[in-house]
């Protein structure tokens, strides 16, 4: 049913093969595991040693999906933007939750591979890229109990003149001999925190007066002083566990401080540009999955003497869903290409944040709108656990909050639009 509209991609045998292979993995491995994880009543089961979560993570690492965003000179997968987009859409089609797990996994090593030198490359990046057993697993610690949307706003460079109006942040790093000591809590919403061995962590620096006076570091989580809470029991994206992390005098060497002033203030938004493309793309995969489920169902379910898809009203819904999936793919791919160019090719790290944020919002919103209509097409059956659509709907709903609410991401983009356009 998939038709690739871009002839450059359609006619490229390598890309078609890449899509087919990734799709097979998403269909045969990710989706069944995600459904199993989703149905576990206790999130502790998701993170247990014998959970399918670990099998999938290992298989993703064997296939190199944990290296998509790592600098190719430092062991990255070496894909281009289009290839990354194809892989991520397919993985997202399989499940956004498990794809988020492999996405947050690579944030800290990817940042290190792009900006760091010395010890951190030897001790973190190299073993990370070589890992095929999920010995290492990363998460991304941004939001805090008192500082949710505020942290998202603080990452937009155009918002800097107003940054002092925000909460000044709770997780702090202070100089300590030849390194740093970290204290404070991250929110209960850190994806993969319950399973992670390392966190890419946002901290504030002395005098701890503003979120802009911050830094990004990598912290191994097997140290004394690190406490993790229980995984959160939640509505959607249940196959990727969220949980809090608290730091009590946790030490890291100076090398592990990856982005510091003045770069933090001006460039931290570039991480959000990359994660935004990621999010927009994987949710495009979810949108497509929901559309396909609805289309299939509408061809088989008969009401008033004919298949649902033969009813005008349903046809109209199917068309709108199709339009959203296709436009979401085109838009997120274009923006992914732009951000990739600025990050991995030109290395100027000056991607347009309003575009990147809008790719995230567009992908997430499309996914929710498509999943919402798709579930409606299923009627009462859509609400049952027998069909995938209810999971897709719950996952899409969680997406409107994950990584920044669509409203707040839009607000951040608007600051950039007003300043730059």
């Amino acid at each position, binding site marked *: 049913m998939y038709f690739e509209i871009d002839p450059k991609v359609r006619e490229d045998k390598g890309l078609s093969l890449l899509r087919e292979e990734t799709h097979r993995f998403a269909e045969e491995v990710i989706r069944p595991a995600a459904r199993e994880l989703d149905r576990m009543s206790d999130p502790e089961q998701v993170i247990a040693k014998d959970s399918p979560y670990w099998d999938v993570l290992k298989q993703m690492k064997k296939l190199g999906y944990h290296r998509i965003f790592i600098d190719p000179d430092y062991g990255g997968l070496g894909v281009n933007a289009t290839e990354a987009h194809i892989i991520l859409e397919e993985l997202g089609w399989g499940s956004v939750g498990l794809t988020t797990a492999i996405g947050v996994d690579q944030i800290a090593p990817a940042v290190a591979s*792009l900006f760091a030198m*010395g010890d951190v490359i030897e001790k973190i990046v190299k073993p990370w890229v070589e890992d095929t057993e999920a010995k290492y697993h990363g998460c991304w610690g941004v939001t805090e109990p008192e500082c949710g949307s505020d942290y998202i706003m603080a990452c937009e460079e155009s918002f800097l003149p107003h940054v002092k109006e925000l909460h000044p942040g709770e997780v702090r790093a202070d100089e300590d001999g030849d390194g740093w000591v970290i204290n404070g809590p991250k929110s209960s919403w850190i994806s993969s925190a319950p399973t992670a061995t390392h966190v890419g962590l946002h901290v504030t620096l002395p005098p701890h007066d503003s979120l802009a006076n911050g830094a990004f570091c990598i912290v191994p989580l097997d140290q004394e002083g690190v406490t993790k809470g229980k995984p959160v029991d939640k509505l959607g994206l249940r196959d990727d566990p969220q949980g809090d992390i608290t730091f009590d005098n946790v030490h890291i060497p100076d*090398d592990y401080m990856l982005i510091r002033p003045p770069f933090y203030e001006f460039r931290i938004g570039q991480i959000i540009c990359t994660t935004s493309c990621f999010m927009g793309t994987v949710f495009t995969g979810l949108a497509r999955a929901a559309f396909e489920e609805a289309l299939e169902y509408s061809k088989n379910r008969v009401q008033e003497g004919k298949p649902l898809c033969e009813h005008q009203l349903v046809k109209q819904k199917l068309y709108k869903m199709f339009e959203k999936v296709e436009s979401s793919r085109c838009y997120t791919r274009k923006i992914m290409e732009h951000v990739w160019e600025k990050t991995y090719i030109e290395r100027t790290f*000056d991607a347009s944040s309003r575009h990147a944020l809008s790719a995230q919002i567009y992908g997430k919103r499309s996914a929710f709108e498509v999943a919402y209509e798709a579930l409606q097409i299923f009627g009462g059956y859509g609400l049952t656990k027998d069909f995938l659509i209810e999971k897709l709907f719950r996952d899409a709903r969680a997406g409107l909050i994950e990584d920044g609410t669509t409203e707040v991401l839009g607000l951040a983009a608007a600051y950039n639009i007003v300043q730059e356009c």
Partner: protein
Amino acid sequence: MAIFPSREWVEAVLQAAEKSEKYKEAAKDWEGDFLSIIEGDEEFVRDLSRREGMEGFISFLDMMPLEARRKYNGTPMGDVFEKKLGVPLDSPADKFSIDEMLSMVSKLSVEDLKGACTYFWSDFWHGSVRAMKPVAPGEHEDATFKLSGKYSAWKLMVSGKQDTIRLVMSNKLKLEGDMSYVMKHMKAVVALTKEVFAGVPID
């Protein structure tokens, strides 16, 4: 292959910048001079102990007028030359005996180089490099930007082996000045390393 820093290297860099259309385009809006500060380290001692290294460095210093070189006297770098290598930096060029200096360099330790800095100043203006030359301590202190770091880090940058951003972000080079300006003109910074510096192989 040029020695960094040397007269030959400066001339080659100026030429490379003049020839590079990519650099000119990327830096067409750039306005701002740089005071660069190279701090002596182990690698500096190693390079000075090679004849070409020593000759290159002397040729670099020789680009300064005598009175500028005199200002190094009493600074850690001046002391290295006067007390450890036996020739004050403000000596006329023919007073520098490379053989003698090479024999003394072997006794030089990293400790002797503590605080020993060489300064050079470059004026980048709308895609051209209007000046690049060694200067005396204290000169061009009001430069728009200051970039300082160990000699080994500088070599990584000018050889094009490492990009400036990675060196600055990992604290190997320290950049002072209006960072938001630098961020807005990242293309120029990247092109300077990739198109100009990397085009002049160093030994």
